[in-house]
């Protein structure tokens, strides 16, 4: 908000850089949190909702661990594939002698409640990120980075486990940008769409949703696969955080303040190459 920036100037004069000038967050006021409050709050609510969805979703699959393609599918029909686990219903032929306890009641209640939480949180995040230019400034890669070369360079650097310079810790690289944008604009919309296509009430009102997916059982199978991709993202996301310093990065996502990861700062990196602008800022801070 321009008003609050003016207020900042009045209290404590310091350079305020217009956010839309550059994606290089090193240019920003160093007091600006690494992650805005809205990002932190919606991130952790999404974490809670996602785990609830994952656990309840897996539990619902246990009642019928067979997947089909097309409109219909049941135990009298040939499945597309089967997950080799015992089922929670004795009508499902699994090859196992025992039947798991039925947990579908609370799993379904929890699944839909968590889905509401995730969708509403996602809406707040999406609208806020359009208004405060989070998407534009932080997530859309800078034109120079939109090349295969830049993409490969980031991966190579990560694989070499090369130390990060501080500017990098304040912004997302092109691989991160693409991963986050894919989750936000492809996987989440897809998982919501395929999930809604399983609702007989919703399908009555909007039949095109399920019909475009090739039928109800196709929608269920796709819902399962998209959930799998989201789980894959989660695993890689947590692994990358672990590599960068799990607690320091987690603390940053809670408090917003960037703490240098001890793992990545060795002697040679104590005085890293700093751009002219950030030198000015650090001197002013000092």
């Amino acid at each position, binding site marked *: 908000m321009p008003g609050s920036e003016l207020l900042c100037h009045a209290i404590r004069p310091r350079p305020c850089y217009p956010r839309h000038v550059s994606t290089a967050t090193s240019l920003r006021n160093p007091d600006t949190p690494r992650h805005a409050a809205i990002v932190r709050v919606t991130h952790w609510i999404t974490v809670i909702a996602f785990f609830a969805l994952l656990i309840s979703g897996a539990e*619902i699959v246990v*009642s019928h661990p*067979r997947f089909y393609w097309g409109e219909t*599918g049941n135990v009298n*029909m040939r499945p597309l594939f089967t997950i080799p686990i015992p089922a929670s219903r004795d009508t499902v032929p699994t090859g196992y002698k025992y039947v798991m306890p039925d947990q579908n*009641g609370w799993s379904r209640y*929890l699944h*839909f409640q968590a889905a509401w939480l995730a969708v509403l949180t996602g809406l707040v995040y999406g609208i806020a990120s359009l208004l405060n230019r989070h998407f534009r400034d932080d997530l859309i890669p800078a034109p120079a980075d939109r090349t295969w070369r830049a993409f490969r360079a980031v991966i190579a650097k990560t694989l070499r486990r090369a130390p990060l310079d501080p500017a990098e810790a304040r912004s997302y690289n092109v691989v991160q940008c693409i991963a986050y944008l894919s989750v936000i604009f492809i996987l989440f919309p897809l998982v919501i769409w395929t999930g809604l296509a399983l609702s*007989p009430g919703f399908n009555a*009102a909007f039949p095109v949703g399920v019909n475009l997916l090739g039928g109800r059982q196709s929608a269920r199978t796709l819902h399962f696969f998209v959930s799998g991709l989201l789980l894959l993202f989660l695993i890689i996301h947590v692994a990358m955080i672990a590599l960068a310093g799990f607690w320091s990065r987690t603390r940053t996502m809670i408090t917003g303040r960037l703490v240098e990861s001890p793992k990545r700062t060795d002697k040679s990196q104590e005085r890293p190459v700093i751009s002219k602008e950030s030198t000015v800022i650090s001197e002013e801070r000092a």
Partner: protein
Amino acid sequence: MNISRRKLITAGLAATAGASSLAAAALMARRYGLVPPDCKGFYGPGETLTYAAQRLLTTHSLAREFPRTMISKTPFANEVSPFKDDFKLHQPGTFKAWRLAVDGMVTHPASFSLSDLHSFPIRSQITEVVCEEGWSYVAEWIGTPLFEVLHSVGVLPQARYIVYFSIDRDWWESIDMADALHPQTFLTLGMNDGDLPVGFGGPLRLRVPRQLGYKSVKYITRLTATDNLKTFGKGLGSASPEAGYAWYAGI
């Protein structure tokens, strides 16, 4: 952290506006029947949001109907509880003595035999049965729309729900009037050009095609119109919430 007076006032106004609009929404939701009977407890908010959203979006929409070629060759009947003597007493095939009692908030309580029900307008629909477990099949369902029977007994305008009971005492459900008067909600007597097989709910099943299979109760013997679900069972609306399942099964 600097908390300016402006921010404090803005936050205060936002919180007040939020709280009062929530209270107004709750009032409106109750007034327009957007609150399900199992709205209490931890999962109440999610259930209420789902039911309210679907009622606002889907009240008049029709379940998808399919061409005859899509009728499943291998439908799955699912298992039912073992039949007790009261079911076994009925003559298989004809069910001559089967009665459907209709009572509660109606001007002319009545009891119908299967042939009485056959004298109502008979319709058919090709719709999908969707089980909460994930499986499904498409079949042609033949029967009389529930609204025909409700109109004939003169259901009172105050009635808000229809409660329906299986001969299996543990299986009873209820639906709101949007579903009860919906043209695809059938008292089903036949399936795929034949009588309704016992496995699929014969002789009489209430099909609610816009909700999951467990709302389509098999072996219907009684319907009751009511404005208050609290007086039935544990007051949660139907047997499903008592067993841990949602009352509204449109999702």
